[in-house]
């Protein structure tokens, strides 16, 4: 945060206890790390081009996470809140589409890589 900042929007992703009504025991996140970091930089660069934002933080954990833990945090500061909200939303939406990170959900009856199969 800088002295020119008027607002910060923070998105905190949390591990939910269910997916489509099935109880989730835990999540395992795997990343193709160098490419994931490079894609995150690209998303931040595009956000800086599109909105008058000041600082951007993109954080993503990997490995085993329990229900309630925080896999992802996005924070965007800006002089005005419109830009902070819009850029934050853009970053999390785009991260979920392009950053090479994969989530395996563990249910009582087995594990599933999310979105892998139709």
């Amino acid at each position, binding site marked *: 945060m800088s002295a020119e900042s008027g607002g910060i929007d923070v998105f905190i*992703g949390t591990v939910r206890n269910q997916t489509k009504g099935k109880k989730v025991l835990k999540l395992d*996140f*795997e*990343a*193709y790390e*160098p*490419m*994931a970091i*490079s894609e995150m930089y690209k998303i931040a660069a595009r956000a800086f081009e599109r909105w008058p934002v000041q600082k951007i933080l993109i954080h*993503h954990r990997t490995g085993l996470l329990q229900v309630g833990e925080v*896999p*992802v945090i996005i924070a965007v500061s800006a002089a005005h809140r419109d830009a902070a909200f819009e850029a934050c939303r853009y970053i*999390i939406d785009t*991260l*979920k*589409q*392009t*950053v*090479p*990170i*994969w*989530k*395996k959900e563990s249910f009582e009856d087995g594990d599933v*890589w*999310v*979105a*892998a*199969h*139709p």
Partner: protein
Amino acid sequence: MKINVLAFGVAKDIFGSGEVSLEMSNDATIYNLKYLLEQQYPRLKQLSSYMVAVNNEYALPGDTIHERDEVAIIPPVSGG
């Protein structure tokens, strides 16, 4: 040329390994690579989709692969 292919997520399960080696001609494209992999690992075709990255960038089907490129199979991502 010999191409090493990194695999992540469900692709790692399908390959049974985080890295496989393929022998390809020097002018091979992403399209050729996907064809070869799907011959060897037919379960790849059951994925909803998958991309190929070359040197940490998403590649297009017509892009050519060069020796020592870092090639990776990117199944549908699900971070966040």
